[in-house]
């Protein structure tokens, strides 16, 4: 791990690598905090509350620049699965389908509704990133390979396919690239610009959504 981190340093410092402007270059917008509407005096975030919040999220996603990261903050609410579905499904599907290409969503402060949102995402076959005190983790549909690759990418600022290949002892670089490309397609990691290799050629740098 130490050697991996050491090899990461030149990438992390733009002035040394001269190939990427900045690693982990997410442009984080101010967190979108969910609020329960003052209707019916209920403090449970319901599907009816989620309709307006979803519209707001989609609007914010549409306005994000490339590499933009929208944090959805659940700190003040308890949300049941039905409302979570209304709130997140369309946004995540539009991101992964390419409509909002290179935009990202991360969920925060989901302590009180984690299981419901996780079950909802699993049934919808969607995956999202949860920002927690111990770092980012995946919610929803996740296979072992995707989860362990994401965990590895999330341990550092950025990784390359070669690092993934070395870490997991893969047979070839294509397998590692496929793992990272799959995560990038699901908008769980961001593929940053290519950097030149000292030995010639180029490689992409990936950074986890966090």
């Amino acid at each position: 791990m130490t050697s991996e981190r050491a090899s990461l340093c030149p990438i992390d410092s733009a002035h040394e690598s001269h190939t990427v402007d900045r690693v982990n270059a997410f442009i984080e917008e101010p967190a979108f905090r969910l609020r329960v509407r003052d209707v019916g005096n209920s403090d449970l975030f319901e599907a009816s509350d989620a309709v307006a919040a979803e519209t707001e999220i989609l609007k914010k996603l549409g306005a994000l620049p490339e590499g933009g990261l929208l944090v959805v903050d659940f700190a003040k609410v308890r949300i049941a699965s039905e409302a979570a579905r209304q709130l997140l499904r369309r946004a995540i599907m539009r991101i992964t389908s390419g409509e909002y290409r290179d935009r990202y969503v991360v969920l925060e402060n989901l302590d009180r509704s984690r299981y419901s949102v996780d079950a909802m995402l699993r049934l919808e076959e969607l995956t999202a990133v949860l920002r927690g005190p111990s770092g980012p983790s995946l919610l929803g549909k996740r296979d072992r390979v995707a989860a362990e690759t994401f965990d590895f990418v999330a341990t550092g600022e950025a990784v390359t396919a070669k690092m993934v290949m070395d870490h997991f002892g893969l047979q070839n670089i294509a397998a590692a690239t496929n793992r990272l490309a799959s995560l990038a397609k699901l908008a769980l990691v961001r593929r940053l610009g290519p950097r030149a290799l000292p030995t010639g050629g180029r490689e992409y740098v990936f950074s986890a959504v966090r």
Partner: protein
Amino acid sequence: MIPSLIGVDSAQALRRVVCASPSRASTLWLSALGIGIGDADGHRAFQAGLRSTGLHGDLGRVPPQLTIIDWSLVAELCADSLAYATVVLHALVDRGVPVICCPPDDEHGRQLLMGGWTAPLRREGVVWLSVAGEHRKRAAGPVLLSPIVTFGGSHGPFQASTVLAQLEESLDRHGWPPSPLVSEMVMELVQNTKAHANASVAAMSAMLFPRRRPAMLQVAVADDGVGIPASLQTHPRYAWLGLVSDASAVESVYAARWSRRAPAAGGGVLGELLQLLLAEYESRIVVRSGSGHVCVTSRRPTRASCHSFSHGFGTQHLLEIRRPLA
């Protein structure tokens, strides 16, 4: 008739009154309900009393002029009996049937039932007998963890944060390890009731049995809605379920994650969470809906035990969770 009953010395006197005019009153002997739906035999016994109330949709039956809910012989109160009794009581009063309640004989049960957290059981239209004299002494039994909450219909929304925060705080006070899954299960059950039951009243109750080894948490949600089988059959995809028993229809919801909504439309989350609960805790889940009674335990999470009754009223969910060993 009702005012003259207030202040009688004991439940025995009330029983004599009922026996004297059996055609005018129906008695809901809650001795059986005290066992709760967790025990199919107990529930079957309670049905005999429930049938006399006419609440199960027997429209040909003349509603009773008076119903007596008798807790005097209940050995130990439990969460599902409290939630269900609340729903039955509200349904009767809303239909204009006067209700008389006999408190439990033992001191602990009386204190529990007459405390502030059981206020929904003492609504207008319900007369509680003040039974004087000596009461049975019992060691401290179960404790209520949060107020009995009524919601749905004219009973207003479910105050999720208040109720669940109280539940979590009480569990913490009793040394129960933090378990967000339990709160989320309650939230999903309440949400499900609101979305599917079409109920005029629903109730939630949570109790802790600290003297059991290991300690046991009971959470119950009951409603007077259409029931799971009838709700499923409103969808054309499941119309054929009318051919099978209610118990089989209820089982399919939890075993096969069936939902009135297709998985692509957000259905099946409750079944998913219940399976998660069974996997994480030593637990038992009992669902009684329509005439079906289904029980799943964490020891055999894929094999539900099903019973069919002759009739039923609304839906009851009971979660029994054992405290995780350190």
